């Protein structure tokens, strides 16, 4: 959006001087982009070079210093790459004290007060020219206007304060030169429309990389033996064993960790149990501690229930917090993230770790700002703070308080 679309322009008679003055855009198939002290003109953006034009624009506007020389340094970095010969022609003008710096790549004509500057190069040249000009000109035009030199008629009747618009050329009027037509002023009335920061805020266009759209057509495909799936097995499915922090019945998401093997004893019902347990964790039958131990895939050690109703089977370590994805063990795929947030940021980014150790489940506070608390009463409180250091074992029914949020650890029993 530009000033012209925002209604009457503000009173700018006391506006501070602007390094580049008023910028007007000539229509065309390219791109004109402005920041406070910089104007970029890409006179033509052909379809195959759109990504490269975007790279040029991002080099002008991106990270790494807002000064005019910083911008030019990023552009020359881009021009020094192997792909420079594919970059579209462009010119960048930026203010630097009493001077205006100009970088031109390819065939972009530049006229200063009506006089053509001679540093244009061939269309596919990989070279570029940098010039500094004393800031004494009245009009500086970058790019070719269709209607001949100094013809005002083809310019859009508004100025570009900030952002990007389609165009083939830009004319810069030094501060103090009168505008032809103001943003919303009556036609013919001349107003000064220099760069006012407040006006810039209300008239901002924002350039960003357009989101990438992928679409998959779901029309039924012809039969293909290579992807003919097998029917699901009939009968009781095998236990999945240790996989992930998985919602009951949920599929494993990408990035699954390997199953964990443990020693245990097998109940008559076929379930692997902790060798020191008195009764089966699933059917409740008494277990004989003298029976031989076997090695098997560790079953889920319980369930975590969040206070918002989410339920997770506990098959791997879990990092709890506002942004648990930042925890190194989550990034490495050794633990699963469980996001717990509230409006007051009472939970730390990485607040607590729920760790599976053999057959035990324990909680470790990860240096959270507000601490992690445990209630063993079966209800919410009394709360005891989880001490720093090694893990605090969890028993079924224990509640954890993480900031203002709560989690319940429990087990399922067919009773």
């Amino acid at each position, binding site marked *: 959006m530009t000033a012209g679309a925002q209604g009457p322009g503000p009173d700018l008679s006391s506006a501070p001087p602007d390094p580049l003055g008023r910028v007007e855009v000539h229509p065309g198939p390219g791109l004109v982009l402005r920041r406070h002290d910089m104007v970029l003109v890409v006179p033509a953006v052909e379809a195959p070079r759109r990504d490269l034009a975007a790279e040029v624009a991002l080099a002008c506007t991106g990270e790494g210093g807002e000064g005019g020389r910083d911008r030019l340094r990023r552009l020359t970095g881009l021009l020094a790459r192997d792909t420079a010969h594919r970059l579209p022609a462009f010119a960048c003008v930026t203010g630097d004290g009493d001077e205006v710096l100009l970088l031109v790549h390819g065939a972009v004509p530049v006229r200063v007060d009506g006089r053509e500057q001679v540093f244009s190069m061939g269309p596919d040249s990989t070279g570029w020219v940098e010039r500094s000009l004393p800031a004494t000109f009245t009009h500086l035009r970058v790019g070719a206007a269709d209607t001949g030199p100094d013809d005002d008629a083809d310019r859009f009747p508004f100025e570009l304060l900030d952002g990007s618009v389609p165009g083939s050329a830009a004319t810069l009027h030094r501060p103090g030169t009168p505008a032809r037509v103001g943003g919303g002023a009556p036609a013919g009335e001349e107003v000064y429309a220099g760069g006012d920061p407040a006006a810039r805020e209300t008239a901002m266009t924002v350039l960003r990389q357009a989101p990438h759209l992928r679409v998959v057509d779901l029309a039924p495909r012809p039969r293909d033996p290579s992807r003919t799936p097998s029917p699901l097995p009939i009968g009781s499915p095998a236990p999945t064993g240790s996989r992930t922090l998985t*919602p009951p019945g949920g599929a494993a998401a990408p990035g699954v960790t390997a199953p964990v093997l443990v020693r245990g004893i097998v109940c008559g019902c076929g379930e692997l149990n902790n060798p020191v347990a008195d009764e089966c964790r699933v059917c409740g039958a008494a277990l004989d501690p003298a029976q031989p131990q076997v090695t098997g895939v560790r079953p889920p050690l319980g369930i975590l229930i969040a206070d918002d109703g989410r339920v997770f089977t506990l098959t791997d370590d879990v990092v709890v917090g506002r942004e648990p994805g930042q925890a190194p063990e989550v990034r490495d795929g050794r633990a699963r993230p469980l996001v717990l947030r509230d409006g007051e940021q009472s939970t730390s980014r990485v607040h607590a770790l729920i760790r599976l150790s053999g057959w035990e489940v324990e909680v470790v506070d990860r240096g959270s700002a507000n601490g992690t608390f445990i209630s063993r009463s079966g209800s919410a409180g009394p709360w005891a703070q989880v001490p720093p250091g090694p893990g605090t074992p969890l028993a079924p029914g224990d*509640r954890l308080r993480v900031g203002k949020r709560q989690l319940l650890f429990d087990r399922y029993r067919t009773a």
Partner: protein
Amino acid sequence: MDGIGGYAFVREIGRGVHGRVFLATPPPRVEAPEGHVAIKVFSADATDEGFELMARRLHAYADLASSHLVHLHETGLDGHTAFLSMRFEPSGSLGGPTLAVDRTERLRAVARAARAAHELHEAGVVHRGIRPANILLAPRGALLAEPAVAQVLSRAEHLTGLGTRGDARDLEFVDPSLMRGAAAGRTSDIWALGVTLHIALTGFGLYPALSSADPMVAARMFLRSRPEPDAELSARERAVVARTIDPDVGKRYRTAAALADDIDELVR
């Protein structure tokens, strides 16, 4: 938000735990003779990997081209937001019908959903999301909506059917054997069909107390109770429901098609 992926939203028509559903005008690439489509916009940020996994599952559903399933148009990823467009079914769902449906229509709808589940099972797909809200009422017969795919979208966190808004009543559609680490399969979808059938017969689920409790208390109750079909049901009705929720999964219906046959018998 007023559109995504070239679709222009007309109005919101549903909101689930994994995202929102809109009535939308599709872009020209989509052939929708009705002029409008339903588009589901998922709330979780999707990774490319997660999106591909979701698209594979949806293909497996759509390739069946079954009269028991909803017609899907396309799925897409706009930035990090995944969407799925499908034919708009204006009659609502078994969970929220736009017109009154009687017992026979409700049972026929569950039977068709069971046949749909069977077709998916035969194609190697577990649905994982069977519940009244996912059985759409179409004039030509009820349709089972697409399988639960939202949880594969993002590596960040797996969501359960309960979602962050925490409606504990959804918990009852989850086969408790999954909480012990059993893999989802035919029997867990049959459990969900049985709970859905119970709601179609009685108007309430198998764990009525779940609706009153806070989510953590409700989950504890769910973990500790063994559901029984409502005493008011006829002996035949009770027998069918009981065979879907038996704690011993070996005693449940072996296939969803067998369940569908028995539900059809209840209608007669």
